[in-house]
């Protein structure tokens, strides 16, 4: 086993709301290996974004109340704010779903892309800008030197996402966290950005955490995937194994509920009945049990831990941990 670059252990992040305490991230553990692309999939409210924000210590107003995030021998939940700011500037970068709201509308694009170099590497403006222009070119922005003088609103959505990626990469970070980076984009532009992320991963060796609700994107981008539901990891493993032979009923049902472009015949979709649970009022036991087709009596009583099931996968399910296969009409 190679040494993990980033290790998340039993992370807990909570939000105080009027209706009570929300456990947005409730005991999440995983590791990210050097140079790999790890997918985190789940629906809105499953805690995938809050997990990412907690790693970057950007979870406020939420509070990290337990667990460790180990990066290069340091526990990121314990470092000071100024140390963390430095890590964000040099070693870890994050890109978001909506590039328009993540860029400052009143500064020229090149200036913003160069900012991490000025702030964290102490470069002078001219040198930083030259490097930013070069990076804009490398992420596929045509006439980068001229475009660096433009403001964010002068770019299209796809181009803005390229600018964000360039900004994240200027300091050649070890970890890039991409939170739904293509959700706001059209499919042909999505394909361009995904291609760019693959390229970045190969060329810079940046380990990437790709957060998405799109199972197709994960299938095409990630060697390993973790599946989240209601603040917990319910399944983890190599993407090929998880997709071919899911070991958690949620993954299993989700894969059957989506239409596939390459489907040969028209068959009715098999939806997951019911709704994702409210985080304020989680069901007892396994949070998925009210919607689960395989549930047994124990599922409504005890919360299953994430355990090895089969050779390569982890699953938090009493049924598959007891050796049962997931099959159904």
């Amino acid at each position: 086993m190679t040494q993990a670059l980033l290790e998340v252990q039993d992370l807990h992040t909570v939000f105080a709301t009027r209706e009570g305490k929300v456990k947005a991230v409730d005991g999440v553990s995983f590791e990210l290996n050097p140079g790999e692309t790890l997918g985190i999939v789940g629906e809105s409210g499953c805690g995938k974004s809050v997990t990412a924000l907690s790693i970057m210590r950007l979870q406020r107003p939420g509070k990290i109340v337990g667990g460790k995030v180990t990066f290069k021998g340091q526990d990121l939940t314990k470092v000071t704010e100024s140390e963390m700011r430095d890590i964000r500037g040099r070693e870890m970068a994050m890109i978001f779903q909506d590039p328009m709201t993540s860029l400052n509308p009143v500064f020229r694009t090149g200036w913003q892309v160069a900012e991490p170099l000025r702030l964290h590497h102490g470069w002078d403006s001219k040198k930083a800008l030259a490097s930013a222009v070069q990076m804009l070119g490398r992420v596929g922005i045509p006439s980068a030197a001229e475009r660096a003088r433009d403001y964010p609103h002068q770019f299209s959505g796809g181009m803005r996402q390229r600018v964000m990626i360039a900004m994240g990469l200027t300091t050649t970070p070890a970890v890039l966290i991409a939170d739904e980076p293509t959700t706001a984009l059209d499919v042909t532009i999505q394909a361009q950005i995904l291609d760019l992320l693959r390229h970045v991963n190969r060329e810079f060796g940046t380990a990437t955490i790709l957060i998405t609700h799109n199972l197709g994107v994960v299938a095409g981008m990630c060697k390993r995937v973790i599946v989240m539901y209601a603040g917990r990891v319910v399944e983890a493993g190599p993407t090929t194994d998880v997709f071919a032979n899911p070991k958690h009923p949620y993954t299993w049902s989700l894969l059957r509920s989506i239409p596939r472009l390459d489907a040969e015949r028209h068959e009715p979709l098999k939806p997951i009945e019911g709704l994702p649970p409210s985080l304020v009022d989680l069901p007892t036991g396994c949070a998925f049990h009210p919607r689960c087709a395989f549930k047994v009596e124990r599922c409504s009583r005890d919360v299953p831990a994430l355990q090895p099931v089969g050779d390569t996968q982890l699953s938090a399910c009493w049924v598959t941990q007891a050796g049962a296969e997931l099959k159904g009409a």
Partner: protein
Amino acid sequence: MPEGAPVKTLTRAWTTADPLVSVSDLKVWFPVSSGILQRTIAHVHAVDGVDLEIKTGETVGLVGESGCGKSTLGRAVIRLLEPTGGKILFKGDDITHLRGERLRALRRDMAMIFQDPYASLDPRQTVGDIVGEPIDIHHLAKGKERQDRIREMLRVVGLNPRFVDRYPHEFSGGQRQRVGIARALAVEPSFIICDEPISALDVSIQAQIINLLERLQSKFNLTYLFIAHDLSVVKHISNRIAVMYLGKIMEVAGGTQLYKRPRHPYTGSLLSAIPIPDPVVEMRRERLILQGDVASPVNPPSGCRFRTRCPRAREHCAEEVPPLEEYGDEHKAACFYPLD
């Protein structure tokens, strides 16, 4: 049908064997104004010469990227927008410029389901009021009959009829979309435009709504124009698919035919851009990645509108607009140098 040819108005009575909707050379332009006098300086060519037929009982999927004009086309077809040019026949009648009482009567036969179930329902109305409003507008029922009809509609879309007195905020996104569908069905329309009806919903809820729309279609013999950007969903629900790019239809074909043998290079790259949730398939797929962005609809490229991003474009493509040509079996594409 050659571009710009007038739709034949029927000389006999319309039957269900005729197209429910025929659109020919439809144009919807929006003025762009500027200056102190707000003079019109240009037009956005949102829909720019579209020919399309929709048969009774079928689902035609309309796909394309944002800004391609698919929603504008949908809205013009049910006359929520005034067409700039061309012609729309509905059940054999020319409805292109209907007004007043006749337009209102037409609205009984057509309905629309919107993308955002949060924005399309009035938060101050109860679900009963929302579903009952079209019934009142068209004087379809009163008193107890009206109440029964509202409850029946809620039941049909899978909501508990006891919910009539609740407000939209008490429902989840999927349930709100069901309310929107109940409202659309309340006037007993024959034609429904579904404009991105599932894109605002969670993945696990999308299948519930798709299955509901399919069930309702066979129950009430509905005809759908299903507008979406997600080709996997559109292929699943549609009999035929029309691919739009910058205000024009580039290709029309049955779903499987379109996927297996796309003729237009745009369709080819669009299909290749859709991720398939299967890592084994994804690994083996050839990716055709389009360069650049969609051109501006204010000043669309001459000739073929796709030529600025097309890997196969030649000189001729800039000089002439390629017409929609037949490739057999209801398959049409507008390209001078089609894929084999």
